[in-house]
């Protein structure tokens, strides 16, 4: 149940939680949110790793961070700064330790969602230190913010100021009528459905094609198929994560939180630098606000800028995974962004536009291939098939892509059309239109149908 695209979550947990949340008097609602989130985390942990061994890691981090934030607020000057440094180092060290344990000792040793809740904690500490958090938050507020179930597993990394904006949680502030509450739930559901369909009907099917390519073996795919594979994996990643983010933000809207934009049509960007302001935007802005700017940002010498960006991209790579391919991925993006900053952006208009689009639409999918394949030899094999200048592959079937385009071509076309911002914006602007709502209704049940058949039947995705 740890994922939102799960029948039990959609038809049991979510409706039950929504009813309980709004039935609870405003004074106690934060507790409902916190308890509900902990139940979600506990049940999800048991479902996915089979035990609760790592649950104390979350609880411990919550308590320590709350206490430190209080301590930081109560002192001034150098002491304050030292305390902040201490808790940030503690959070970062915890994250690094668990990531290394998860990678090199045992995968189950990494607490679910640690990458995301730790980033929330660091952002909370910095915002609290900088006085961006007005009142003295109570323990229940901070704990519910860290643990809230729409975000605890994979973000988005919402800021505390957005969290505390929720009038439904503030006694005396909430004057929402029943109609307004239901309107919120209705609006949230629309985003949830679009996200669910992206995940279930698009991403999960792209995943099947990507898996198929792995089964064949990278050394044996034709060059056209290798490029289709790069596009497929790029689309899979995008719709999986964008879909997840829409579901997460949709649920948050149902609970009265503001809609958090995590993906802002990245593939329509004019450069890679812009792409990463619009892709997983809450992560990008986190890096900007809590690493890049504290190091001096762009107001320093050119050499320092290069160094700052290098640090940001190395950390980004490491954050995604501990294996070498993620570091390589981060480094290559750093190089591309450097080239853009110092060369491409200085080119005349048309040339700048062409190179920029090329970087987004061709280089980005290639970087995702590096992101996808952690084994160095296999990665090399894949690139040899993408660029077949270094000899032919082994046992290549040159018609492999025709068969697979026959099966997946339609779905890939849908995914490509959805990259155009106007399509999604049309939905957003017309989401109260009855026709759109009928489409959403159909999409919802289509997704549920697909989900049910894959969940109860492991053979749907993995028939031999």
């Amino acid at each position, binding site marked *: 149940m740890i994922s939102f695209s799960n029948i039990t979550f959609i*038809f049991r947990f979510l409706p039950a939680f929504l009813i309980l949340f709004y039935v609870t008097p405003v004074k106690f609602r934060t507790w409902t949110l916190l308890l509900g989130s902990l139940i979600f985390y506990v049940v999800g942990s048991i479902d996915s790793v089979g035990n609760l061994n790592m649950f104390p890691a979350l609880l411990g981090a919550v308590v320590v961070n709350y206490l430190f934030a209080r301590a930081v607020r109560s002192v001034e000057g150098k002491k304050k700064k030292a305390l902040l440094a201490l808790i940030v180092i503690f959070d970062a060290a915890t994250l690094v330790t668990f990531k290394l344990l998860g990678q090199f000792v045992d995968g189950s040793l990494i607490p679910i969602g640690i990458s995301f809740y730790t980033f929330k904690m660091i952002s909370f500490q910095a915002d609290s230190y900088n006085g961006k958090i007005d009142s003295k938050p109570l323990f229940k507020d901070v704990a519910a913010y860290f643990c809230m179930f729409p975000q605890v597993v994979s973000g988005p990394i919402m800021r505390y100021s957005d969290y505390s904006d929720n009038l439904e949680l503030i006694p005396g502030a909430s004057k929402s009528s029943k109609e307004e509450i239901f309107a919120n739930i209705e609006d949230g559901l629309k985003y949830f*459905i679009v996200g669910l369909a992206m995940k279930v009907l698009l991403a999960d099917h792209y995943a099947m094609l990507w898996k198929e390519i792995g089964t064949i073996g990278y050394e044996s795919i034709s060059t056209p198929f290798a490029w289709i594979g790069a596009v497929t994996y790029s689309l899979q990643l995008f719709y999986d994560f964008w879909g997840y983010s829409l579901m997460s933000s949709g649920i948050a809207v149902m609970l009265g939180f503001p809609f958090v934009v995590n993906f802002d049509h990245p593939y329509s960007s004019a450069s890679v630098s812009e792409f990463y302001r619009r892709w997983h935007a809450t992560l990008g802005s986190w890096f900007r606000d809590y690493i890049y700017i504290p190091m001096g940002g762009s107001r320093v010498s050119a050499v320092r800028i290069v160094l700052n960006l290098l640090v940001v991209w190395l950390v980004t790579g490491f954050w995604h995974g501990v294996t070498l391919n993620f570091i390589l991925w981060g480094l290559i993006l750093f190089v591309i962004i450097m080239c853009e900053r110092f060369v491409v952006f200085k080119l005349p208009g048309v040339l700048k536009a062409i190179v920029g689009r090329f970087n987004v639409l061709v280089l980005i999918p290639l970087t995702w291939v590096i992101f996808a394949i952690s084994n160095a030899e296999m990665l090399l094999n894949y690139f040899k098939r993408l660029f077949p200048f270094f000899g032919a592959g082994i046992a290549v079937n040159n018609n492999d892509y025709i068969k697979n385009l026959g099966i997946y071509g339609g779905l890939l076309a849908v995914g490509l059309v959805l990259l155009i911002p106007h399509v999604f914006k049309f939905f957003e602007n017309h989401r109260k239109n009855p026709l759109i709502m009928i489409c959403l209704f159909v999409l919802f049940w289509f997704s549920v*149908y697909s989900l049910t058949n894959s969940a109860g039947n492991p053979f749907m995705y993995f028939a031999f």
Partner: protein
Amino acid sequence: MNCFKTCPLVTGVVVFSIIISAVTFVAKGSIYADYSADFDPAEQPLFVVMIKGISNGVMPWQIFDKESVMAAKEDDIGDAAALLADVSGNDISGNDVSGNDSSPEEITFKEVTDDYFADALFIGDSRTVGLSEYCEGLDEQAMFYAKVSLSIHSVLENDFLKDEDGKKMTVEQALEKDEPYGKIYIMLGLNELGTGTTETFVAKYAEVLARIRELQPDAIIYIQSIMHVTENKSSNDKIFTNERINERNEALSHLANNVDIFYLDMNEAVDDENGNLLEELSTDDIHLKASSYERWHQYLLKHAIVKD
């Protein structure tokens, strides 16, 4: 407050959920009886039963259709009868085995070249599909009736083939009208590893063999062993274990009469020393990588029956 005005979508979804749950409740004893047997209400909502039925072609409105309701009930009886028949069928095939005192040394496999497969047909699941796609030598010569997820239970009835007019056609129909094949290679048994028992599986296999024999009286039939999975898969899966595959292969080997039906243990070509699929031949622990199909091909070239 007017729910339908304030939140039409939420209302629609809720009302529709209630309706399909109610329909499932009514139909779970009749047309959806097959799908409600192992349903656990603590795990999933009730309408999941109906969705599973629909995905198998049982539409909810069939509840108004007396014949479908009766058919569902008869199906139950039919299944039981089939099961009984399977068991006794197994006895027959069992007899075949013991009746056939052919000792292994009677089989002399010869080494042949690719033109041996010019009148050969391959029937199988995704693994045979892979063989057709990544073994040019075979694909140029032989005919392939192979499909992902094919099992011994669906092999004859599934209409995945197309005739000249583009009309759907079953393997049974194809074998009836095709020119006689010289050799028919079969590899099936992985998809159904989780269903039935070794006895029911082998009984069905025998039945399929009999039907193929009837349609293609002169072909040499090769029963290929079910290919193993890797150690990694075998030790981490409840269903797809090499232990179970071996049990079924052992039973399959007895279906050969060594006259015109032969058993080929193709696992010899792909196994490690512990009888698991070699790790380096597969990336998903179940299928051969494209570059590994050549081993299978070579094995077949070296294990051919040549009639004098």
